[in-house]
Protein backbone atom coordinates (compact mmCIF):
# COMPACT_ATOMS: atom_id res chain seq x y z
CA UNK A 1 0.00 0.00 0.00
CA UNK A 2 2.12 2.81 -1.31
CA UNK A 3 -0.61 5.15 -2.52
CA UNK A 4 -2.45 7.55 -0.23
CA UNK A 5 -6.25 7.65 -0.30
CA UNK A 6 -7.82 10.91 -1.48
CA UNK A 7 -9.50 13.08 1.07
CA UNK A 8 -13.10 11.89 1.41
CA UNK A 9 -12.18 8.22 0.99
CA UNK A 10 -11.45 6.28 4.15
CA UNK A 11 -11.05 2.76 5.32
CA UNK A 12 -13.86 2.03 7.75
CA UNK A 13 -15.26 -0.97 9.52
CA UNK A 14 -18.58 -2.41 8.23
CA UNK A 15 -19.84 -5.58 9.93
CA UNK A 16 -16.34 -6.20 11.31
CA UNK A 17 -14.66 -5.86 7.89
CA UNK A 18 -12.48 -2.86 7.08
CA UNK A 19 -13.59 -1.48 3.73
CA UNK A 20 -13.17 1.63 1.58
CA UNK A 21 -15.98 4.12 2.04
CA UNK A 22 -17.19 7.54 0.93
CA UNK A 23 -19.88 9.84 2.23
CA UNK A 24 -23.07 10.04 0.21
CA UNK A 25 -26.53 8.68 -0.57
CA UNK A 26 -26.35 4.84 -0.96
CA UNK A 27 -26.82 3.60 -4.51
CA UNK A 28 -26.57 -0.13 -4.96
CA UNK A 29 -27.56 -1.67 -1.64
CA UNK A 30 -24.09 -1.25 -0.13
CA UNK A 31 -23.71 -1.27 3.71
CA UNK A 32 -23.80 2.12 5.38
CA UNK A 33 -22.63 3.59 8.63
CA UNK A 34 -24.09 7.01 9.29
CA UNK A 35 -23.16 9.16 6.27
CA UNK A 36 -20.57 6.65 5.16
CA UNK A 37 -21.25 4.01 2.56
CA UNK A 38 -19.01 1.05 1.75
CA UNK A 39 -17.31 1.04 -1.65
CA UNK A 40 -17.66 -2.46 -3.04
CA UNK A 41 -14.29 -3.08 -4.71
CA UNK A 42 -15.63 -6.30 -6.31
CA UNK A 43 -18.02 -4.13 -8.30
CA UNK A 44 -15.70 -1.16 -8.85
CA UNK A 45 -12.37 -1.27 -10.66
CA UNK A 46 -11.34 2.20 -9.47
CA UNK A 47 -12.16 1.02 -5.95
CA UNK A 48 -9.90 -1.98 -6.50
CA UNK A 49 -7.10 0.30 -7.73
CA UNK A 50 -7.33 2.47 -4.61
CA UNK A 51 -7.68 -0.53 -2.36
CA UNK A 52 -4.49 -2.15 -3.63
CA UNK A 53 -2.67 1.16 -3.19
CA UNK A 54 -1.96 2.18 -6.74
CA UNK A 55 -0.60 5.73 -6.93
CA UNK A 56 -3.61 7.32 -8.65
CA UNK A 57 -2.64 10.91 -7.90
CA UNK A 58 -6.14 11.51 -6.48
CA UNK A 59 -6.20 13.75 -3.45
CA UNK A 60 -9.87 14.78 -3.34
CA UNK A 61 -11.89 17.65 -4.82
CA UNK A 62 -10.54 17.06 -8.33
CA UNK A 63 -12.48 17.91 -11.44
CA UNK A 64 -13.24 14.55 -13.13
CA UNK A 65 -14.30 13.32 -16.54
CA UNK A 66 -15.69 9.81 -16.15
CA UNK A 67 -15.97 7.87 -19.42
CA UNK A 68 -18.23 4.80 -19.33
CA UNK A 69 -20.19 5.74 -16.22
CA UNK A 70 -22.73 2.93 -16.73
CA UNK A 71 -25.35 2.79 -13.96
CA UNK A 72 -23.14 4.83 -11.66
CA UNK A 73 -21.78 2.31 -9.15
CA UNK A 74 -18.27 3.77 -9.27
CA UNK A 75 -19.04 7.33 -10.35
CA UNK A 76 -21.29 7.72 -7.30
CA UNK A 77 -18.25 7.23 -5.06
CA UNK A 78 -16.14 9.54 -7.24
CA UNK A 79 -18.73 12.28 -6.99
CA UNK A 80 -18.75 11.76 -3.22
CA UNK A 81 -15.09 12.83 -2.84
CA UNK A 82 -14.36 14.78 -6.06
CA UNK A 83 -15.39 18.17 -7.35
CA UNK A 84 -17.34 18.69 -10.59
CA UNK A 85 -17.76 15.23 -12.11
CA UNK A 86 -18.77 14.83 -15.74
CA UNK A 87 -20.21 11.33 -16.34
CA UNK A 88 -20.35 10.20 -19.98
CA UNK A 89 -22.37 7.11 -20.87
CA UNK A 90 -23.74 6.09 -24.27
CA UNK A 91 -26.26 3.37 -23.40
CA UNK A 92 -29.68 4.71 -22.48
CA UNK A 93 -30.72 1.95 -20.12
CA UNK A 94 -28.02 2.41 -17.40
CA UNK A 95 -28.41 6.20 -17.64
CA UNK A 96 -31.82 5.82 -16.01
CA UNK A 97 -30.06 4.48 -12.90
CA UNK A 98 -27.27 7.03 -13.27
CA UNK A 99 -29.85 9.82 -13.09
CA UNK A 100 -31.02 8.51 -9.73
CA UNK A 101 -27.41 8.67 -8.56
CA UNK A 102 -27.15 12.25 -9.84
CA UNK A 103 -30.34 13.33 -8.10
CA UNK A 104 -28.59 13.49 -4.72
CA UNK A 105 -25.22 14.67 -6.12
CA UNK A 106 -25.34 18.26 -7.45
CA UNK A 107 -21.70 18.00 -8.64
CA UNK A 108 -22.51 15.07 -10.96
CA UNK A 109 -23.34 15.98 -14.57
CA UNK A 110 -24.78 13.18 -16.67
CA UNK A 111 -24.08 13.25 -20.41
CA UNK A 112 -25.71 10.68 -22.69
CA UNK A 113 -22.86 10.87 -25.22
CA UNK A 114 -20.45 8.66 -27.14
CA UNK A 115 -16.96 8.71 -25.54
CA UNK A 116 -15.48 8.18 -29.02
CA UNK A 117 -16.82 11.61 -30.08
CA UNK A 118 -15.47 14.23 -27.62
CA UNK A 119 -16.56 17.16 -29.81
CA UNK A 120 -20.11 16.30 -28.81
CA UNK A 121 -19.39 17.19 -25.17
CA UNK A 122 -16.34 19.52 -25.28
CA UNK A 123 -18.82 22.45 -25.23
CA UNK A 124 -19.93 21.25 -21.78
CA UNK A 125 -16.92 19.65 -20.11
CA UNK A 126 -14.20 21.89 -18.68
CA UNK A 127 -10.51 20.87 -18.49
CA UNK A 128 -10.20 18.22 -15.78
CA UNK A 129 -7.63 16.90 -13.30
CA UNK A 130 -8.56 13.29 -13.84
CA UNK A 131 -10.06 11.14 -16.55
CA UNK A 132 -11.44 7.83 -15.33
CA UNK A 133 -11.97 5.53 -18.29
CA UNK A 134 -13.96 2.28 -18.05
CA UNK A 135 -15.52 1.76 -21.45
CA UNK A 136 -16.50 -1.62 -22.82
CA UNK A 137 -16.03 -0.97 -26.51
CA UNK A 138 -13.31 -1.82 -28.99
CA UNK A 139 -10.65 0.85 -29.49
CA UNK A 140 -10.06 1.68 -25.83
CA UNK A 141 -6.67 3.29 -26.62
CA UNK A 142 -8.34 5.52 -29.18
CA UNK A 143 -10.88 6.66 -26.59
CA UNK A 144 -8.01 7.64 -24.25
CA UNK A 145 -6.18 9.44 -27.08
CA UNK A 146 -9.28 11.34 -28.22
CA UNK A 147 -10.11 12.49 -24.71
CA UNK A 148 -6.58 13.59 -23.84
CA UNK A 149 -7.67 17.11 -24.84
CA UNK A 150 -9.65 17.35 -21.59
CA UNK A 151 -6.66 16.74 -19.27
CA UNK A 152 -4.90 19.58 -17.49
CA UNK A 153 -1.12 19.69 -17.72
CA UNK A 154 -0.40 17.59 -14.64
CA UNK A 155 -3.61 15.57 -14.91
CA UNK A 156 -4.04 11.82 -14.70
CA UNK A 157 -5.61 9.19 -16.88
CA UNK A 158 -6.92 6.29 -14.79
CA UNK A 159 -7.93 3.73 -17.36
CA UNK A 160 -9.19 0.21 -16.95
CA UNK A 161 -8.55 -1.85 -20.08
CA UNK A 162 -10.97 -4.73 -20.58
CA UNK A 163 -9.27 -7.40 -22.71
CA UNK A 164 -12.55 -9.07 -23.68
CA UNK A 165 -13.95 -5.87 -25.14
CA UNK A 166 -11.16 -5.76 -27.72
CA UNK A 167 -11.07 -9.39 -28.77
CA UNK A 168 -12.67 -12.26 -26.88
CA UNK A 169 -10.32 -14.78 -28.47
CA UNK A 170 -6.98 -13.00 -27.98
CA UNK A 171 -4.58 -13.46 -25.08
CA UNK A 172 -5.24 -10.60 -22.56
CA UNK A 173 -1.48 -9.95 -22.30
CA UNK A 174 -1.35 -9.22 -26.03
CA UNK A 175 -4.37 -6.94 -25.80
CA UNK A 176 -2.78 -4.97 -22.96
CA UNK A 177 0.48 -4.68 -24.92
CA UNK A 178 -1.45 -3.36 -27.93
CA UNK A 179 -3.20 -0.81 -25.70
CA UNK A 180 0.15 0.40 -24.37
CA UNK A 181 1.61 0.72 -27.85
CA UNK A 182 -1.43 2.55 -29.22
CA UNK A 183 -1.60 5.08 -26.41
CA UNK A 184 -0.38 8.41 -27.80
CA UNK A 185 0.59 11.58 -25.91
CA UNK A 186 0.67 9.83 -22.57
CA UNK A 187 3.44 8.68 -20.28
CA UNK A 188 2.46 5.52 -18.44
CA UNK A 189 3.24 5.78 -14.73
CA UNK A 190 1.97 2.47 -13.50
CA UNK A 191 0.02 -0.56 -14.64
CA UNK A 192 -1.41 -3.44 -12.65
CA UNK A 193 -3.65 -6.37 -13.49
CA UNK A 194 -6.80 -6.46 -11.40
CA UNK A 195 -7.16 -10.27 -11.26
CA UNK A 196 -8.66 -12.01 -9.40
CA UNK A 197 -11.22 -9.36 -8.41
CA UNK A 198 -11.61 -8.31 -12.06
CA UNK A 199 -10.37 -10.97 -14.48
CA UNK A 200 -8.64 -9.84 -17.66
CA UNK A 201 -8.62 -6.17 -16.65
CA UNK A 202 -5.53 -3.97 -16.67
CA UNK A 203 -5.41 -0.80 -14.60
CA UNK A 204 -3.32 1.96 -16.17
CA UNK A 205 -2.18 5.26 -14.58
CA UNK A 206 -0.79 7.76 -17.10
CA UNK A 207 -0.18 11.46 -17.47
CA UNK A 208 -0.23 13.57 -20.62
CA UNK A 209 3.06 14.51 -22.23
CA UNK A 210 3.47 18.02 -23.65
Amino acid at each position, binding site marked *: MTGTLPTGVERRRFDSNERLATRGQPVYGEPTDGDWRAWDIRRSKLGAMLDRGMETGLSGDETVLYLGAAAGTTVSHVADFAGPTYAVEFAARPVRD*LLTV*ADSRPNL*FVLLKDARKP*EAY*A*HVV*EPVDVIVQDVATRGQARVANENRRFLKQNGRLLAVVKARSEDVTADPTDVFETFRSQLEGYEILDTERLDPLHDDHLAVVARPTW
Partner: protein
Amino acid sequence: MNEDAVSDSGWFRGVDPGDGSSARHAIEHGSAESPAAWPDHAVESGFVDNRSQYYEVLHDVTTAVARTQVREREGTDVQRIIHCVRAMDDVERVANELAERVSAWAGASFDDPGTGIEYAREIADETAADSEDRRGALDARLSSLAAQVRALDDEGQALRDTIERVTPEVAPNVSMLAGPVLAARLIALAGGLETLAKKPSGTVQLLGAEDALFAHLSGRASSPKHGIIYVHEYVSGTAPEHRGTAARALAGKLTIAARIDHYSGDRRPELQAELDERIARIRERGD
Protein backbone atom coordinates in the same frame (compact mmCIF):
# COMPACT_ATOMS: atom_id res chain seq x y z
CA MET B 1 -14.83 15.61 -38.19
CA ASN B 2 -17.50 17.91 -39.53
CA GLU B 3 -16.27 21.49 -39.17
CA ASP B 4 -19.76 22.89 -39.62
CA ALA B 5 -20.98 21.12 -36.52
CA VAL B 6 -18.12 22.31 -34.30
CA SER B 7 -18.06 25.74 -32.72
CA ASP B 8 -15.61 26.76 -30.07
CA SER B 9 -17.93 28.33 -27.61
CA GLY B 10 -19.60 26.85 -24.54
CA TRP B 11 -23.06 25.37 -24.51
CA PHE B 12 -24.46 28.54 -22.82
CA ARG B 13 -23.43 30.96 -25.60
CA GLY B 14 -26.60 32.60 -26.87
CA VAL B 15 -28.77 30.76 -24.39
CA ASP B 16 -31.22 32.73 -22.27
CA PRO B 17 -30.72 31.48 -18.68
CA GLY B 18 -34.49 31.54 -18.22
CA ASP B 19 -35.17 29.41 -21.33
CA GLY B 20 -34.75 25.76 -20.36
CA SER B 21 -35.64 24.52 -23.79
CA SER B 22 -32.84 26.38 -25.61
CA ALA B 23 -30.37 25.29 -22.89
CA ARG B 24 -31.37 21.68 -23.32
CA HIS B 25 -31.07 21.97 -27.09
CA ALA B 26 -27.56 23.43 -26.70
CA ILE B 27 -26.39 20.57 -24.41
CA GLU B 28 -27.85 17.91 -26.69
CA HIS B 29 -26.90 19.26 -30.11
CA GLY B 30 -24.00 21.66 -29.52
CA SER B 31 -20.34 20.82 -29.96
CA ALA B 32 -16.82 22.20 -29.61
CA GLU B 33 -13.39 21.14 -30.74
CA SER B 34 -11.81 21.55 -27.31
CA PRO B 35 -12.83 22.11 -23.72
CA ALA B 36 -12.34 25.48 -22.02
CA ALA B 37 -12.84 26.96 -18.59
CA TRP B 38 -16.58 27.11 -19.23
CA PRO B 39 -17.58 27.99 -15.64
CA ASP B 40 -15.35 31.09 -15.74
CA HIS B 41 -16.57 32.04 -19.24
CA ALA B 42 -20.16 31.69 -18.09
CA VAL B 43 -19.56 34.04 -15.20
CA GLU B 44 -17.59 36.50 -17.35
CA SER B 45 -20.28 36.55 -20.04
CA GLY B 46 -22.93 37.20 -17.42
CA PHE B 47 -24.78 33.93 -18.05
CA VAL B 48 -24.57 33.24 -14.32
CA ASP B 49 -23.44 35.26 -11.32
CA ASN B 50 -20.90 32.80 -9.96
CA ARG B 51 -19.41 29.34 -10.39
CA SER B 52 -21.68 27.69 -7.88
CA GLN B 53 -24.72 29.00 -9.70
CA TYR B 54 -23.19 27.70 -12.96
CA TYR B 55 -22.88 24.16 -11.61
CA GLU B 56 -26.41 24.32 -10.27
CA VAL B 57 -27.78 25.26 -13.69
CA LEU B 58 -25.55 22.70 -15.41
CA HIS B 59 -26.80 19.94 -13.11
CA ASP B 60 -30.42 20.77 -13.78
CA VAL B 61 -29.98 21.04 -17.53
CA THR B 62 -27.83 17.93 -18.05
CA THR B 63 -30.19 15.90 -15.88
CA ALA B 64 -33.23 17.12 -17.76
CA VAL B 65 -31.63 16.42 -21.14
CA ALA B 66 -30.49 12.92 -20.17
CA ARG B 67 -33.89 12.07 -18.74
CA THR B 68 -35.64 13.11 -21.97
CA GLN B 69 -33.12 11.25 -24.12
CA VAL B 70 -33.49 8.09 -22.06
CA ARG B 71 -37.26 8.30 -22.30
CA GLU B 72 -37.06 8.81 -26.08
CA ARG B 73 -34.62 5.97 -26.60
CA GLU B 74 -36.72 3.68 -24.48
CA GLY B 75 -39.79 4.70 -26.40
CA THR B 76 -37.98 3.65 -29.56
CA ASP B 77 -37.00 0.38 -27.93
CA VAL B 78 -40.60 -0.23 -26.90
CA GLN B 79 -41.76 0.40 -30.45
CA ARG B 80 -39.08 -1.96 -31.67
CA ILE B 81 -40.25 -4.66 -29.28
CA ILE B 82 -43.83 -4.19 -30.43
CA HIS B 83 -42.84 -4.54 -34.08
CA CYS B 84 -40.65 -7.54 -33.31
CA VAL B 85 -43.36 -9.38 -31.40
CA ARG B 86 -45.93 -8.75 -34.12
CA ALA B 87 -43.47 -9.75 -36.83
CA MET B 88 -42.56 -12.88 -34.86
CA ASP B 89 -46.22 -13.89 -34.68
CA ASP B 90 -46.66 -13.22 -38.41
CA VAL B 91 -43.53 -15.12 -39.34
CA GLU B 92 -44.32 -18.12 -37.15
CA ARG B 93 -47.86 -18.27 -38.50
CA VAL B 94 -46.84 -18.15 -42.16
CA ALA B 95 -44.00 -20.62 -41.57
CA ASN B 96 -46.56 -23.06 -40.20
CA GLU B 97 -48.93 -22.46 -43.09
CA LEU B 98 -46.23 -23.06 -45.69
CA ALA B 99 -45.02 -26.11 -43.76
CA GLU B 100 -48.50 -27.60 -44.16
CA ARG B 101 -48.24 -27.07 -47.89
CA VAL B 102 -44.81 -28.72 -47.94
CA SER B 103 -46.20 -31.68 -46.05
CA ALA B 104 -49.18 -32.07 -48.41
CA TRP B 105 -46.89 -31.83 -51.43
CA ALA B 106 -44.30 -34.25 -50.03
CA GLY B 107 -47.14 -36.71 -49.36
CA ALA B 108 -47.49 -37.06 -53.13
CA SER B 109 -43.88 -38.28 -53.45
CA PHE B 110 -43.19 -40.17 -50.24
CA ASP B 111 -45.16 -42.69 -48.26
CA ASP B 112 -44.10 -41.25 -44.94
CA PRO B 113 -44.52 -37.49 -45.08
CA GLY B 114 -44.03 -35.87 -41.70
CA THR B 115 -45.73 -32.68 -40.62
CA GLY B 116 -44.89 -29.26 -39.36
CA ILE B 117 -41.88 -27.03 -39.56
CA GLU B 118 -39.50 -29.76 -38.43
CA TYR B 119 -40.45 -31.88 -41.42
CA ALA B 120 -40.09 -28.97 -43.82
CA ARG B 121 -36.61 -28.38 -42.40
CA GLU B 122 -35.80 -32.04 -43.03
CA ILE B 123 -36.89 -31.73 -46.64
CA ALA B 124 -34.86 -28.55 -47.00
CA ASP B 125 -31.83 -30.24 -45.45
CA GLU B 126 -32.14 -33.40 -47.56
CA THR B 127 -28.51 -33.86 -48.49
CA ALA B 128 -27.51 -37.06 -46.73
CA ALA B 129 -25.60 -39.44 -48.99
CA ASP B 130 -27.78 -42.38 -48.02
CA SER B 131 -30.93 -40.80 -49.35
CA GLU B 132 -29.89 -40.22 -52.93
CA ASP B 133 -33.02 -41.86 -54.37
CA ARG B 134 -35.19 -39.79 -52.15
CA ARG B 135 -33.33 -36.65 -53.12
CA GLY B 136 -33.70 -37.55 -56.78
CA ALA B 137 -37.44 -37.92 -56.33
CA LEU B 138 -37.63 -34.55 -54.65
CA ASP B 139 -39.16 -31.83 -56.74
CA ALA B 140 -36.77 -28.88 -56.94
CA ARG B 141 -39.65 -26.48 -56.32
CA LEU B 142 -40.72 -28.44 -53.25
CA SER B 143 -37.15 -28.27 -51.90
CA SER B 144 -37.12 -24.57 -52.53
CA LEU B 145 -40.46 -24.09 -50.78
CA ALA B 146 -39.16 -26.10 -47.83
CA ALA B 147 -36.08 -23.87 -47.74
CA GLN B 148 -38.42 -20.85 -47.46
CA VAL B 149 -40.03 -22.47 -44.43
CA ARG B 150 -36.59 -23.03 -42.91
CA ALA B 151 -35.61 -19.40 -43.53
CA LEU B 152 -38.88 -18.16 -41.98
CA ASP B 153 -38.40 -20.42 -38.99
CA ASP B 154 -34.88 -19.01 -38.53
CA GLU B 155 -36.26 -15.49 -38.89
CA GLY B 156 -38.85 -16.17 -36.21
CA GLN B 157 -36.09 -17.39 -33.92
CA ALA B 158 -33.98 -14.30 -34.61
CA LEU B 159 -36.96 -12.07 -33.77
CA ARG B 160 -37.49 -14.04 -30.56
CA ASP B 161 -33.81 -13.61 -29.66
CA THR B 162 -34.07 -9.87 -30.20
CA ILE B 163 -37.18 -9.70 -28.02
CA GLU B 164 -35.45 -11.70 -25.30
CA ARG B 165 -32.48 -9.34 -25.36
CA VAL B 166 -34.26 -5.98 -25.57
CA THR B 167 -37.38 -6.46 -23.44
CA PRO B 168 -35.52 -6.95 -20.13
CA GLU B 169 -33.64 -3.69 -20.78
CA VAL B 170 -36.85 -1.74 -21.23
CA ALA B 171 -39.10 -3.55 -18.78
CA PRO B 172 -36.86 -5.42 -16.34
CA ASN B 173 -39.52 -6.19 -13.74
CA VAL B 174 -42.30 -7.24 -16.11
CA SER B 175 -39.72 -9.41 -17.93
CA MET B 176 -38.61 -10.95 -14.67
CA LEU B 177 -42.16 -11.93 -13.71
CA ALA B 178 -43.58 -12.86 -17.12
CA GLY B 179 -40.52 -13.80 -19.14
CA PRO B 180 -39.37 -11.48 -21.93
CA VAL B 181 -41.69 -12.80 -24.66
CA LEU B 182 -44.90 -12.62 -22.63
CA ALA B 183 -43.72 -9.22 -21.36
CA ALA B 184 -43.30 -8.09 -24.97
CA ARG B 185 -46.78 -9.40 -25.86
CA LEU B 186 -48.35 -7.51 -22.98
CA ILE B 187 -46.57 -4.32 -24.01
CA ALA B 188 -47.64 -4.85 -27.62
CA LEU B 189 -51.26 -5.55 -26.65
CA ALA B 190 -51.35 -2.45 -24.46
CA GLY B 191 -49.67 -0.41 -27.21
CA GLY B 192 -46.65 0.62 -25.16
CA LEU B 193 -45.02 0.39 -21.72
CA GLU B 194 -46.60 3.65 -20.58
CA THR B 195 -50.11 2.57 -21.58
CA LEU B 196 -49.49 -0.82 -19.91
CA ALA B 197 -48.34 0.97 -16.75
CA LYS B 198 -51.54 3.04 -16.72
CA LYS B 199 -53.97 0.15 -17.10
CA PRO B 200 -55.85 -1.21 -14.10
CA SER B 201 -54.88 -4.72 -13.05
CA GLY B 202 -58.24 -6.15 -14.22
CA THR B 203 -57.53 -4.92 -17.74
CA VAL B 204 -54.02 -6.39 -17.75
CA GLN B 205 -55.57 -9.70 -16.65
CA LEU B 206 -57.75 -9.73 -19.78
CA LEU B 207 -55.30 -8.29 -22.36
CA GLY B 208 -55.55 -10.47 -25.46
CA ALA B 209 -59.02 -11.72 -24.51
CA GLU B 210 -60.82 -8.77 -26.10
CA ASP B 211 -62.94 -11.03 -28.35
CA ALA B 212 -64.05 -13.20 -25.45
CA LEU B 213 -64.77 -10.11 -23.37
CA PHE B 214 -66.87 -8.61 -26.15
CA ALA B 215 -68.77 -11.90 -26.48
CA HIS B 216 -69.40 -11.79 -22.74
CA LEU B 217 -70.57 -8.19 -22.79
CA SER B 218 -72.92 -9.04 -25.66
CA GLY B 219 -74.40 -11.77 -23.48
CA ARG B 220 -73.07 -14.53 -25.71
CA ALA B 221 -70.50 -16.08 -23.35
CA SER B 222 -69.40 -16.25 -19.75
CA SER B 223 -66.87 -13.76 -18.42
CA PRO B 224 -63.27 -14.57 -19.46
CA LYS B 225 -60.85 -15.25 -16.58
CA HIS B 226 -57.62 -14.36 -18.35
CA GLY B 227 -56.14 -13.15 -21.60
CA ILE B 228 -52.67 -13.80 -22.93
CA ILE B 229 -51.30 -14.27 -19.39
CA TYR B 230 -52.87 -17.72 -19.61
CA VAL B 231 -49.61 -18.91 -21.18
CA HIS B 232 -47.78 -18.16 -17.93
CA GLU B 233 -47.11 -21.33 -15.99
CA TYR B 234 -48.60 -19.72 -12.87
CA VAL B 235 -51.97 -19.57 -14.65
CA SER B 236 -52.01 -22.56 -17.01
CA GLY B 237 -50.21 -24.73 -14.44
CA THR B 238 -52.72 -23.95 -11.69
CA ALA B 239 -55.75 -26.18 -11.17
CA PRO B 240 -58.80 -24.83 -13.08
CA GLU B 241 -60.77 -23.96 -9.94
CA HIS B 242 -57.99 -21.64 -8.73
CA ARG B 243 -56.92 -20.36 -12.14
CA GLY B 244 -58.95 -17.16 -11.98
CA THR B 245 -57.42 -16.28 -8.61
CA ALA B 246 -53.92 -17.03 -9.90
CA ALA B 247 -54.55 -14.88 -12.99
CA ARG B 248 -55.72 -12.02 -10.78
CA ALA B 249 -52.64 -12.33 -8.56
CA LEU B 250 -50.26 -12.44 -11.53
CA ALA B 251 -51.97 -9.49 -13.24
CA GLY B 252 -51.72 -7.53 -10.01
CA LYS B 253 -47.97 -8.04 -9.72
CA LEU B 254 -47.46 -7.38 -13.44
CA THR B 255 -49.29 -4.09 -13.12
CA ILE B 256 -47.03 -3.04 -10.25
CA ALA B 257 -43.98 -4.21 -12.22
CA ALA B 258 -45.03 -2.22 -15.29
CA ARG B 259 -45.43 0.93 -13.19
CA ILE B 260 -41.98 0.51 -11.63
CA ASP B 261 -40.49 -0.20 -15.07
CA HIS B 262 -42.08 2.88 -16.55
CA TYR B 263 -41.71 5.38 -13.74
CA SER B 264 -38.46 4.44 -12.01
CA GLY B 265 -36.78 1.56 -13.77
CA ASP B 266 -35.46 0.03 -10.53
CA ARG B 267 -35.09 -3.69 -10.37
CA ARG B 268 -37.23 -5.15 -7.63
CA PRO B 269 -36.33 -8.80 -7.10
CA GLU B 270 -38.71 -8.94 -4.17
CA LEU B 271 -41.66 -8.78 -6.58
CA GLN B 272 -40.74 -12.24 -7.81
CA ALA B 273 -40.51 -13.64 -4.29
CA GLU B 274 -43.89 -12.13 -3.38
CA LEU B 275 -45.50 -13.55 -6.50
CA ASP B 276 -43.98 -17.00 -5.93
CA GLU B 277 -45.30 -17.05 -2.41
CA ARG B 278 -48.74 -15.81 -3.39
CA ILE B 279 -49.13 -18.46 -6.10
CA ALA B 280 -47.92 -21.20 -3.77
CA ARG B 281 -50.61 -20.15 -1.30
CA ILE B 282 -53.31 -20.07 -3.99
CA ARG B 283 -52.35 -23.53 -5.21
CA GLU B 284 -52.40 -24.85 -1.65
CA ARG B 285 -55.49 -23.22 -0.27
CA GLY B 286 -57.12 -21.37 -3.10
CA ASP B 287 -56.58 -17.88 -1.74
